[in-house]
């Protein structure tokens, strides 16, 4: 999987922010991951450990918030939560034209540093 690449992406953002703030170490990193991405939580934890080795983020805790998917119906404006497979159709009116509001995010929310 590509969790190693994602961990590298998180690390770059984290190190830029931590160094910019004059940090000596990073304690925790908060990230949000949409449930429709292909990210596997355990694999990301594992990749994080490997990616941070020898950096100021070594030993830091990666706090992953998984975000459920939500869509809005273009016909009736209903906003509904859904899983991976059942989001293509509005549960209220049966319409097929829906806009994804949430579920594909991959975001670093913040860090805790010393």
């Amino acid at each position: 999987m590509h969790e190693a690449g994602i961990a590298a992406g998180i690390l770059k953002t984290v190190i830029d922010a931590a160094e910019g703030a004059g940090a000596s170490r990073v304690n925790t990193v908060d990230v949000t991951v949409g449930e429709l991405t292909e990210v596997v939580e355990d694999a990301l934890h594992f990749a994080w450990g490997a990616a941070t080795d020898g950096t100021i983020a070594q030993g830091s805790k990666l706090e992953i918030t998984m975000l459920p998917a939500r869509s809005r119906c273009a016909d009736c404006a209903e906003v509904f939560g859904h899983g991976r497979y059942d989001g293509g159709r509005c549960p209220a009116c049966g319409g097929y034209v829906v806009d994804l509001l949430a579920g594909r995010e991959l975001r670093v929310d913040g860090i805790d540093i010393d």
Partner: protein
Amino acid sequence: MKIDIGERILAANDDLAAGNRELFAEHGVYVLDLMASPGAGKTSTILATIDALRDRYSIAVIEGDIASKVDAEKVRAHGIPAVQINTGGACHLESAMIRRAVDTLDLDALDLIIIENVGNLVCPSDFDLGEHAKVMILSVPEGHDKPYKYPNIFQVSRAVILNKYDTVGVFDFDEAEFREVVGSLNPHAPIFPVSATKGDGVDAWAEWLAERIEAVKEGGSA
């Protein structure tokens, strides 16, 4: 001490993808990212698409593979420039790899670049390469249930090619169910039944692509 960041994780890849997108727009070249499982017929579909469009458009191919260069050689044997990217183990292509490959091509002379992504139904769908469209191929022998298992790739695709359609009678492929599931995941994506090696159905797919190539040549966004 807490610091708020709020930055997209694939930011580095997204930035590079935006750069690629700008470059493609500047040169009026349409870029297609073709995704599928290993053996679904990506290379065969690329060769068939080249045959359908080569009289009208100048085409190049970027071949992504974990190792080896056999696909690039097949394309070159067809008289079309091909750049091989070996990902060295990575299971998908990223924008930086595409940029390095594109830098070896003469973009002003090109109308269409087809990217053969690494054979994988999972992570290529998460990586923006700066392409105009991602399109996936499912081959009939893989089974009509694949959209249930890999919904993401069906959702990010602008069109779905159903390849090896010549074998549809041999396998218990339920086309009606396949169309219904893909339609509910992605109502805007047309499905093109194709037999890449025999040539059936290639024209309809190639016309869909040609319309988009034209729009980009004219400076639209397609």
